[in-house]
């Protein structure tokens, strides 16, 4: 569940939204947010988290340290 978007840095360019394999990203009030319960860190889908790889502003899609890291089902 661990990625989040730092709202103050988000330019709301929408690059991340269509790339998320879990459809966890949506626009809320001009910024994009990640629904924590749906985020799988792209484990099993891609080599790197798509939101972070596509985001044009570095360190904007980051691990949410308040939540436990995602564990892929065995």
């Amino acid at each position, binding site marked *: 569940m661990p990625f989040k978007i730092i709202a103050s840095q988000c*330019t*709301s*360019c*929408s*690059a991340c*939204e*269509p*790339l998320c394999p879990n459809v966890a990203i949506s626009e809320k009030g001009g910024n994009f947010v990640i629904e924590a319960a749906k985020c799988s860190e792209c484990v099993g889908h*891609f*080599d*790197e988290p*798509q939101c972070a*790889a*596509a985001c*044009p*502003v570095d360190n904007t899609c980051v691990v949410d340290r308040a939540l436990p890291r995602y564990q892929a089902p065995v």
Partner: protein
Amino acid sequence: MQSITEHKGCRASAKTGRASCGSQAGRGDLPVEIWERVKNHPCYSEDAHHHYARMHVAVAPACNIQCNYCNRKYDCANESRPGVVSEKLTPEQAVRKVIAVATTIPQMTVLGIAGPGDALANPAKTFKTLALVTEAAPDIKLCLSTNGLALPDYVDTIVRAKVDHVTITINMVDPEIGAKIYPWIFFNHKRYTGIEAARILTNRQLQGLEMLSERGILCKINSVMIPNINDDHLVEVNKAVTSRGAFLHNIMPLISVPEHGTAFGLNGQRGPTAQELKTLQDACEGKINMMRHCRQCRADAVGLLGEDRSAEFTNDQVMKMDVHYDLEMRKAYQKRVENERVSKVAAGQKELAGVSGEMSAITVLVAVATKGSGLINEHFGHAKEFQLYELSTSGAKFVGLRRVEGYCQAGYGEEDRLSVIMRDIRDCHAVFVAKIGGCPKSGLIKAGIEPVDQFAYEYIEKSTIAWFRAYVGKVKRGEIQHVQRGVPPRWPGDRISAA
């Protein structure tokens, strides 16, 4: 008599058989079907840009590459540069805006999707907008602008969407150089950096260009000239795109100031001087048509090139407007524009007939203040740009633009600005205006630039040739001596940083 359409820069290249359209004289010896496609496109035809308008709708905010000259984060209403928009639109809002603009500005013939990100990095939004516009306003031509990374995947979709023209930004064909321009790309779900990223990008760009040319879609190539990085290399780029069927090459100067927050702006990378740009454009001319009337407009620009009316069409205003698409009204208006164009060309040719008999090696550069329609119809003090024409016995050739800060502010002229303007156009022999005050007039005369206001509200070509004819006559009779003018100034980007 030498036809006005036959001067250099408007001729088909012997090697490729391709003909000019970025040049001014209109039809020239372009194949009829290509001329029909470009004649009302302000970006593709220099002649059309006096008469026809375009608009961009900002439906594509996402991008799949990072360029060191781009920063889409900051917008200022007074800025006009690619990637800048005031508000992004949904496809539905975009269509409403298109219809509102088409009704208000009947000479709007072209709709483009130019970002603020990359049109093809937002395929769903881009193609939905194009489909809705085709349905609502079938006579409007569609074009889009892309960095080319996703292009090969969407060529067939572009053909199906009836897109007429595509602009691809290609700044390099050498990955070593590309690595200095692009910090990263996002491709196939992975971020690539460095030379590897640039190699993927250049391969995809050239492949996409080839595929589009094969399918008969006209392709314009935009290149950003970055001194000491790709300036010499752009000649290679020019060759590479020409051989792959590009139709028009637009080499633009880098806009680089720290306030824009771009990587190049922050690390002090300078933009090219006007002279450097013109030298490079001249070096590429002949192999392919060069575009010289580019205004590097905003990704939500509206109106004639050089006359941005985007502020009149914000989403709030568009929502309030009573929009109704009137095809007949648009056709009638465009017919009047066509008639005017025909008489403009005829007037210019008639004037040229008088001068082409006298052979003279003299060429002079003149500046013209215009608001469009091919007329000298702008006051000196209000001009925000001057169009530059090179006059010779073969005609008046459009060679570029000089942006200036208006001399007249709130009714008063500013002395400092006058000297800056004079420095900006000091390589010109004359400046054609609709009206000019006494003070700037004497200033210009003192600086050796002749202010010409007797051709107010007349056609540019006809008037400049008439003036040139008189000038050559005076030189022949020994009344005046012809001297070549000094080096032109740097590009506005340099001046902004100094201000």
